């Protein structure tokens, strides 16, 4: 009992000392902290946060870039109302939703590849490197190569399809029904490496004794996959889903180089349409309204995912 009191007294004493030291250095500590993060904060504020507010302000005007800002008038919500009736914009939104399909598709393929590579192959490092190659390559070069590979009349992909007896292969990027499918195929191809690496890292964290216990119960490979691997990876899956969906809305460079949104608007996405409105049609006000709408959509999607996370992620 006495010993306990002594310990408590000692503890509170050291706590006081620590608190005193803490207070005297607190100013220094705060100052150092601000100094270290200042360059990042200033850069982020100037290059990202201030522009968001400018975009918000501009979105309520009819500003056209070449005419100077003085000539811009406040138009309230008109830009936002126009968006609803703007068919190419609606189509871009729909295309973006289709593009989200690439996310689960990539994830399933990557998960299967990760599980196989993790345990069952030689030269594991080699496989990581080759699956990862598309991820580190420039989108411009990839887009240019795929334009040729997908060439409707003499591209190697269609030559191959015709040689195995498919007489009328799709015209891929030249056909408005197939262009978006081609974009999804290329997107999956470039993203598998990233998803695979993240899944492989996730697999390392699953305790081996879970599998050993299941094996003693005579569980099959499929049962182990379904009842151990998939639930244990659910935080990884959640992470990949949420970042994948955000990235699918940022898909810009591939579209610009590969299709310029065409044929028609069949592969236009929100960010591409925004770019076209801003830098080709110079409708700065309208483009900013699209930007604000896009931000709103991303916020809502992220919020929904965070709420959903509690329901289906097992930690």
């Amino acid at each position, binding site marked *: 009992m006495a010993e306990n009191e002594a310990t408590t007294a000692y503890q509170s004493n050291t706590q006081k000392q620590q608190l005193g030291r803490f207070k005297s250095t607190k100013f220094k500590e*705060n100052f*150092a*902290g601000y100094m270290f993060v200042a360059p990042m904060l200033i850069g982020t504020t100037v290059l990202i946060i201030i522009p*968001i507010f400018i975009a918000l302000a501009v979105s309520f005007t009819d500003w056209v870039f070449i005419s100077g800002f003085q000539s811009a008038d406040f138009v309230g919500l008109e830009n936002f109302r126009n968006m609803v009736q703007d068919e190419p914009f609606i189509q871009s939104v729909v295309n973006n939703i289709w593009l989200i399909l690439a996310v689960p598709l990539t994830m399933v393929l990557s998960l299967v590849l990760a599980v196989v*590579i993790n345990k069952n192959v030689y030269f594991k490092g080699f496989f990581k490197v080759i699956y990862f190659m598309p991820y580190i*390559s420039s989108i*411009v*070069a990839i887009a240019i190569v795929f334009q040729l590979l997908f060439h409707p009349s003499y591209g190697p992909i269609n030559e191959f399809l015709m040689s195995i007896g498919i007489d009328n292969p799709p015209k891929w990027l030249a056909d408005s029904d197939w262009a978006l499918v081609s974009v999804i195929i290329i997107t999956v191809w470039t993203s598998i490496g990233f998803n695979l690496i*993240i899944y492989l890292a996730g697999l390392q964290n699953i305790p081996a004794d879970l599998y050993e216990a299941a094996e003693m119960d005579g569980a099959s490979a499929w049962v182990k996959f379904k009842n151990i691997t998939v639930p244990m990876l659910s935080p990884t899956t959640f*992470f990949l889903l949420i970042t994948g969906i955000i990235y699918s809305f940022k898909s810009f460079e591939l579209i610009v180089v590969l299709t310029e949104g065409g044929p028609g608007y069949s592969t236009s996405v929100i960010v591409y349409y925004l770019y076209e409105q801003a830098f080709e049609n110079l409708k700065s006000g309208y483009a900013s309204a699209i930007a604000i709408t896009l931000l709103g959509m991303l916020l809502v999607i992220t919020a929904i995912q965070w709420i959903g996370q509690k329901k289906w992620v097992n930690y």
Partner: protein
Amino acid sequence: MNRLRRLNTKKVIITIIMFAIGLLFLMPFIWMLSASLKAETNVFSYPIEWIPSDWKWDNYRRVWFGEQPFILYYWNSIKVTVLTTLLSVTVSALAAYGFSKIHFKGRNVLFLIVLATFLIPAQAILVPQFMMYRVLNLFDTHLGLILLNSFSVLGTFLLRQFFSSIQDDYIDAAKMDGASHFTIFYKVVVPMMVPAISTYAILRFIWTWNDYQGPLIFLRSDHLSTIQLAIERFSTSSGELYSLIMAGSVSAILPLIIIFIIGQKYVIEGIARGGVKG
């Protein structure tokens, strides 16, 4: 023994299957390389001539020493990429140290604000950035392009993940000796974190080298063009000269492939650790 051998056979078969799937990932690169060394008339010959019958090294000479100042574009890319990498690594490492090892008021709120900017697609703020760059005279300059990619949320986040793993004891011991945070940062933390910093440096190099959107929007003068912008223009203007376009593309991605192969351990580990994507 018998069982061991059976397992190995299974593993060999799976390795072969996985290699076949892996070829799907390699094929576009091999096709690109092989087309870049062919005579124009053989580019689309079918069945695909994987190894050119007639090696046209001349394609590369025509790209590099042709009408376009390819060497200048290459130099521009090297300059912008190296400077961006240096600046971005410095800014991110300082911020990562501040956000992980210094207990200052408002730290968590500020970090959350920085993290939240990850949500924002770069295209959403292009118009205001473009206006600001015009006003600040940063439009159509390499400096503007460098600044644009130097304040990276992902870099700060990734390095913070690594820095958080340093025991506070190291920092506290150095503090007891009277060292300032800045001294601790560059004498203790940076030397300990060379692998982490290299990981981010390689990733930033790759992302900046590949950046197309930045130069597309913020550069206008041809003599400032980076390689990505140049090959895209080259491919639109050269029309049917596919072998030359492929030679240009190979030239644009080769430095990356080399850096990736040398640093692949860092890159893959970094990606796995931080879950970052360019």
